[in-house]
């Protein structure tokens, strides 16, 4: 039986309104006769790039575009009735943080939904809210009810949002990018939770996502959207194993990542050495005793979930933060820090995550590049003439895939991908030897991501720049890097050649990280495993809230989540051990655990 049946849905945004849905440049996001349906107890996916109209379709179904757009359709029925939010349909949005009212306790935000739905008393609503929180896998729901959204972790907030959606007792849940903002481990949990909920409650689920992996892991049927139309639809197997449309094939190819144009790594001279670097914070992610080397011309990737300390490390290297202890050697010399913040005379440059925040809105692209040249000139004492500067700017813009004329345009006139190109040009114009890319791709669309990635690799090959590539996206990391370092809880748990580490992870955390990435392949994704994730502590009584990111004083940071934890893991931090090209911090590889080895013994994975 069809739960949701939509035929010929058309949406036209009112053009004079400047602020439309936040899901992108909504001006183009108009629907032309879209039809789709969802069966009872079925999970259906709606995929497409941002701007393809998938979010608009959802909002239109829920009737939430009133006053913003013109909506028309041939048929729209939910079990024979019109869809009414809160009665027969509920939504889960991408960003749980912004979906929950920051100044209202989470318990009340669920209970009010129950009261609006059932018209029952406060007490009954509260009891039901506790049940729901328990159902979505939140421990100690009674205490959690009294917390505010900002006191919960991202995964827990998304669970609360799902609980609030369930409180509507809907026939259909529409989930709009429900896992996009989450770490892979948490994403895997939420995927499994959604599956379980559909099984237990018999509700149907319509998933809107740009992530082919998540779609493969959840959906039995998939609609592919492009420019406000359905490009292709079919069962998950049809879509993923034998796509008919070129567009679908492109989406799948982008999702599977990008083939590495192997670069660099001929001479093995270390460019940058980090020794026992430590930086601790009260509230932010700290790092502890991190040692690593980056060789000339190679790409070293740092992977790990948010809060693992990757960004802190990048910020220390770029001079934004200073280390508490430890040392950084650049070409064998201790890194000198000037008060102005530039390190190694501008030989290390950075490409930031958010190209919107990384460019000064008051400066044109050319002015921004000129400022960079000026700064570099100040360090080296070489002043360029105006013509020389113009020439350099034009050349570097072209290299970054922009036109010379773009120098006179302001950042707001560029798209996200183009802005990231300007950022790359700005980083390159000072001729650095090491480029730090801190999640430089994660705010971009799949298409732009691939283009920027190939640009980076091309430039790196051409100029022989070493690159420290920081990302939480294992797909990207696997494709771009020569070597990889995996961080957890502020320490580098495993480092080695990317090929080795990704195909044969030694550290329990690395294994978990790799396994929790859903692949765009329904059969493989069905095997997705859940892993335990530490939750933020519940505030007890009136005491102050413990800052969750503070490093535990002793022991391995991963001990609490590790399935292989030994007795010593909780009391002692494992030291770093080197086996060939691989370096690992885990007691599984200690002599005490595996016994003394004979001379020629080759260590293998212990897990």
């Amino acid at each position, binding site marked *: 039986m069809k739960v949701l049946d939509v035929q010929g849905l058309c949406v036209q945004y009112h053009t004079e309104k400047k602020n439309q849905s936040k899901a992108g440049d909504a001006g183009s996001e108009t629907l032309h006769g879209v039809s789709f349906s969802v069966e009872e107890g079925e999970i259906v996916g709606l995929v497409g790039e941002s701007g393809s109209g998938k979010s608009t379709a959802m909002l239109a179904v829920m009737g939430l575009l009133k006053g913003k757009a013109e909506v028309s359709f041939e048929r729209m029925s939910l079990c024979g009735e019109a869809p009414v939010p809160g009665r027969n349909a509920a939504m889960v949005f991408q960003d749980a943080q912004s979906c929950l*009212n920051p*100044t209202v306790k989470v318990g009340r935000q669920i209970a009010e939904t129950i009261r609006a739905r059932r018209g029952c008393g406060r007490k009954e609503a509260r009891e039901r809210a506790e049940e729901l929180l328990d159902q979505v896998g939140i421990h100690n729901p009674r205490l959690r009810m009294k917390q505010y959204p900002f*006191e919960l972790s991202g995964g827990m907030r998304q669970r609360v949002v799902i609980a609030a959606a369930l409180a509507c007792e809907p026939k259909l849940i529409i989930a709009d990018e429900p896992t996009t903002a989450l770490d892979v481990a948490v994403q895997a949990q939420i995927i499994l939770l959604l599956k379980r909920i559909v099984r237990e409650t018999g509700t149907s689920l319509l998933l809107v996502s740009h992530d082919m992996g998540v779609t493969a892991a959840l959906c039995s049927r998939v609609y592919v959207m492009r420019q406000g139309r359905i490009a292709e639809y079919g069962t998950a197997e049809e879509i993923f194993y034998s796509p008919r449309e070129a567009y679908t094939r492109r989406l799948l190819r982008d999702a599977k990542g990008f083939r590495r144009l192997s670069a660099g790594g001929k001479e093995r001279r270390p460019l940058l050495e980090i020794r026992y670097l430590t930086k601790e914070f009260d509230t932010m992610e700290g790092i502890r005793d991190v040692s690593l080397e980056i060789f000339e011309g190679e790409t070293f990737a740092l992977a790990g979930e948010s809060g693992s300390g990757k960004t802190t490390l990048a910020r220390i290297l770029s001079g934004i933060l200073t280390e508490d202890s430890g040392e950084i050697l650049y070409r064998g010399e201790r890194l000198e820090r000037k008060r102005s913040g530039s390190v190694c005379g501008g030989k290390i440059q950075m490409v930031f995550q958010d190209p919107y925040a990384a460019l000064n809105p008051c400066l044109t692209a050319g002015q921004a590049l000129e400022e960079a040249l000026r700064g570099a000139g100040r360090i080296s004492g070489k002043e360029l003439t105006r013509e020389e500067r113009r020439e350099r700017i034009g050349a570097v813009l072209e290299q970054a895939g922009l036109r010379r004329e773009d120098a006179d345009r302001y950042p707001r006139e560029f798209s996200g991908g183009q802005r990231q190109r300007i950022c790359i040009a700005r980083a390159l114009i000072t001729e650095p030897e090491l480029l730090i890319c801190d999640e430089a791709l994660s705010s971009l669309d799949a298409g732009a991501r691939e283009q920027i990635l190939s640009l980076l690799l091309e430039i790196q090959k051409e100029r022989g720049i070493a690159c420290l590539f920081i990302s939480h996206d294992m797909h990207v990391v696997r494709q771009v890097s020569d070597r990889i370092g995996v961080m957890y809880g502020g320490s580098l748990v495993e480092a080695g050649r990317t090929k080795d580490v990704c195909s044969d992870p030694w550290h329990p955390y690395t294994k978990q990280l790799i396994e929790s990435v859903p692949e765009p392949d329904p059969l493989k994704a069905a095997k997705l495993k859940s892993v335990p994730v530490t939750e933020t502590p519940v505030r007890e009584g009136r005491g102050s809230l413990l800052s969750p990111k503070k490093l535990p004083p002793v022991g391995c940071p991963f001990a609490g989540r590790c399935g292989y934890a030994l007795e010593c893991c909780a009391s002692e931090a494992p030291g770093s051990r080197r086996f060939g090209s691989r370096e690992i911090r885990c007691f599984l590889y200690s002599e005490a655990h595996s016994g003394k080895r004979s001379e020629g013994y080759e260590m293998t994975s212990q897990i």
Partner: protein
Amino acid sequence: MLRYTMKRVLTGVLSLFVLATVTFFLVRLIPGSPFQRGGVSSQVVEAVEEEYGLNEPMLDQYLTYMGSLLRGDMGISYQDPGTEVAEIIGRAWPITASLGITALAAAMILGTALGVIRAVAENRALREIISAGSMLAAGIPSFAAAILLMLLFSVKLRMLPASGLLSPVHYILPTAALSLYPAAVISRLTGNTLRAELQKDYVLFARAKGLGKWRTIFTHALKNAYLPVLSYAGPASASLLTGSFVIESIFTIPGLGREFVSSVTNRDYTLILGLTVFMGTVVIAVNLLTDLLCAWLDPRMRRAYREEDV
């Protein structure tokens, strides 16, 4: 939280100390003597000054004054011998405060109501009328409003009394003149912040959860939209509570503002100082209360304050 409050109180006390000190010396720089009056010979003036200890070294006078201030004694008015400064304040403040509170309540109610209507109304003309009205009201200084209201309602129409504060009817004109500007600002602030708040995802989500439109506005959006309004209303209410010099002088209301103006023209040192310190205390207290109120409404701010404690 407690530590934060304590810190604020301490800063407040420090501010008052600085305020009293600067005012003390500044007052003595005003040309003219408190006892100089037409027909009074300079010998007499000097004699009286000596009696009040005004010929002693400045530092001694300052120390004596601060000492007695610490004991809570604000001294005796020079102008009105035998009357304590505290007594004058005790007489004038209830009048000022009752007017100030009425005006504050009027401004908050009117401003909020208009602001909500402006943010929510689908009728464009209504929205424009409200914003034009609040702009116009914000453009008229309170004393101009007072004069115009008085000319219209008391002089021309003879509907409302023009002076004094004897009956509730007397409150109408001064309250209107006082609350016009804050009401305009509050309506503008409420309208803008509420409209911004209504664009946010949690409002969309609340609607998707099945909550009604008005319920969403009042239980979710307005609470958050009100925080910036409160941080304006705090200092504004402080100035309302310390009395408006002009409104009180136009409507001949015997409140703090009028006492201050007359104390300044009479060079009544102790009364000027006493009034300054008192008004400073009110301003600091009201600002602290506002911040605590905001913290009570906003758990994030509460946490920030709590972290300051650690």
